[in-house]
């Protein structure tokens, strides 16, 4: 990295992404006075990122492999608009070393790490080899490229439960937990097929599944002047099918000594690949505070805002600063995060129906507001959720002086949030925030799947709530049936038994 010029000018950034993260990056550029270029598929002409950027280039049909994943189209858009730099966001081409290399070959700045770091950390096996030399503790597991039979033997040796993971994986895709030998073959098949269709690479490996462990990750920031620091941890144990749902900073499980030790380990892991820019070291931490390196994400994380709120550091601005070849603003690792931040991922998924994704037109979208609330979203009333992209539609982030403050604010913000038209997981988050286990901080990565259900509340609905529901359903039905019967005689509107209608008409006549 030290061979690069020390200060490069960035006047225009092309954002090679969509949705909330594209909007987030455009916002950071605007805050810095840097021009922006959006790329958009045919399904995203109305999307916020297309409308918020200074320029917008159409890159093809809705399926990602015909638009957001086509490196050549993105580079062509950058050349056409004379962008100096490309920010990949997360997902799509963010961890594609070929793409990072092609960007550099075109004389453009890739706002992210070097192709070498991406390649090494993107291959789970190489990553383990790299960090091992720096005494980073690893979860027991196998290497890549093993046959089903070799994997079965390895699993017996490591001992169940184990986790099957895609070599090229990320975001929970191509991952399958297996609790006994009987289900192993089927899990291998599913994981390979999902990995093949998601990443074009069906190779998998296995790892010991740690029971009762937490997912805790460290935010890394490194510049091209040889400085590498961490910005403290994020607690991401609230997951479902390895998809994070709620993240916090700091972690209730953390203590000063553990933060010190894990932070040093995280810095070492990053240094093992000469890492430059923002990255994340994901770890599992067991009940006894033993920790294990899982993987490094060589990009901005979905959950980066919780770190921003407790450190006061704008990670996207720092990414751009580092990509310009400057020294990053913070000079020391963050050992004392200020206050507490919590993020709920708002997904178009139905928590009452096995979290099935929901598509359709968002009819109303009233976002929470007021002190201590941040919403990062790419949708709005009138926006259509299509089946082409992932189901996360917004991130709701709250801040408070303590965990209890942040949680109270989250509870308040969730109750303010109104989205109609599609099913979404706000009810899940509301229930979670009322769960005694979550409130007490007693949870691990299996909590949501094993011990939390939408219909087994830790406190049952009250009689008054049931009564309220009965009244609401009845008034709704009564009104609809009345309106239906009035189609015959529309002049005779029955308003007399609707107190408010009468009152409203009195005011507005």
């Amino acid at each position, binding site marked *: 990295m030290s061979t690069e010029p020390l200060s490069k000018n960035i006047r225009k950034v092309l954002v090679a992404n969509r949705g909330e993260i594209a909007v987030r990056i455009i916002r950071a550029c605007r805050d810095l006075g840097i021009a922006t270029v959006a790329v958009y598929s045919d399904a995203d002409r109305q999307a916020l990122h297309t409308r918020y950027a200074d320029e917008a280039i159409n890159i093809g049909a809705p399926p990602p492999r015909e638009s957001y994943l086509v490196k050549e189209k993105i580079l062509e858009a950058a050349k056409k608009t004379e962008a100096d730099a490309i920010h990949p966001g997360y997902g799509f081409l963010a961890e594609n070393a070929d793409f990072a290399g092609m960007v550099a070959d075109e004389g453009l700045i890739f706002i992210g790490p070097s192709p070498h770091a991406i390649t090494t950390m993107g291959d789970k096996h190489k990553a383990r080899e790299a960090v091992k030399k720096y005494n980073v503790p690893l979860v027991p597991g196998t290497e890549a490229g093993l046959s089903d039979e070799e994997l079965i033997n390895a699993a017996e040796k490591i001992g169940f439960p184990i986790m099957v993971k895609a070599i090229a994986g990320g975001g929970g895709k191509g991952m399958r937990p297996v609790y006994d030998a009987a289900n192993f073959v089927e899990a291998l098949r599913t994981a390979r097929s*999902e990995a093949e269709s998601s990443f074009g690479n069906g190779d998998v490996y296995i790892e010991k599944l740690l029971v009762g462990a937490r997912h805790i990750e460290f935010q890394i920031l490194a510049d091209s002047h040889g400085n590498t620091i961490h910005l403290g941890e994020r607690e991401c144990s609230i997951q479902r099918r390895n998809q994070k749902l709620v993240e916090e900073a700091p972690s209730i499980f953390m203590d000063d000594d553990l933060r010190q030790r894990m932070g040093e380990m995280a810095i070492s892991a990053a240094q093992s690949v000469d890492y430059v820019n923002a990255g994340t070291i994901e770890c599992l931490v067991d009940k006894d505070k033993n920790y294990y390196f899982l993987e490094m994400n060589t990009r901005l994380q979905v959950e980066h805002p919780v770190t921003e709120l407790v450190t006061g550091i704008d990670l996207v601005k720092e990414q751009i600063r580092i990509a310009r070849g400057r020294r990053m603003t913070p000079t020391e690792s963050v050992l004392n995060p200020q206050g507490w931040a919590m993020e709920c991922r708002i997904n178009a998924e139905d928590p009452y129906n096995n979290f099935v994704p929901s598509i359709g037109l968002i009819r109303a979208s009233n976002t929470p507001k007021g002190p201590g609330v941040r919403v990062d979203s790419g949708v709005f009333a009138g926006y259509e959720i299509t089946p082409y992209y992932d189901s996360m539609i917004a991130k709701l982030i709250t801040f408070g002086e303590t965990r209890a403050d942040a949680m109270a604010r989250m509870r308040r913000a969730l109750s303010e949030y109104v989205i109609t*038209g599609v099913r979404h997981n*706000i009810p899940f988050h509301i229930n979670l925030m009322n769960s005694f286990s979550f409130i007490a901080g007693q949870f691990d990565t299996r909590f949501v799947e094993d011990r939390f259900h939408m219909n087994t*509340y830790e406190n049952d609905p009250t009689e008054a*709530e049931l009564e309220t*529901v009965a009244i*609401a359903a009845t*008034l709704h*039905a009564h009104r609809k049936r009345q309106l239906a019967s009035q189609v015959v005689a529309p002049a005779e509107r029955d308003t007399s038994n609707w107190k408010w209608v009468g009152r409203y008409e009195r005011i507005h006549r």
Partner: protein
Amino acid sequence: MKYTTIVNNEHFEVEIQRDGSVFVNGKRHEVDWLELPESLYSMIKDNKSIEVAVDENDGNYNVLLEGRLYEAQVLDQRAMMMLGRKGGLKLDSGEIKAPMPGLIIDVLVNVGDDVNEGDTVIILESMKMQNELKAPRTGSVQSIQCKQGDTIDKNTLLLIISGSDEE
């Protein structure tokens, strides 16, 4: 107007009066009911300010109140009488329809197979995730309308399970 409304298997006799009051199981409540845009309502019930969303679903109502979803049936007197005659509420249909558009990754059963409620029968990929579609009832597979590799639209009928507990 009088209704019988069933929420979580509990029956409520709800009577709507012309003066804006509502009687529930004979007890009077002051209810101020305001329709907001897009299926939302603001209710002020005995001074309590409450916001609910109501969705219609096959003649039943899904009511979302403070983050919990309730299913409600609203029966007028005629419907109650008919129900009395038939002897019960209707069972879950044995049809599995696609909850979203996507690609059929696998069909795990064959016609004639016995399945238990909750068994995974089809794997559907959508939004980059594999989703397991489960049997809505115990019974046997009567027909299969899709195969691996099919690209299907939302609400496409995929599979029918005949009930083992049919009358």
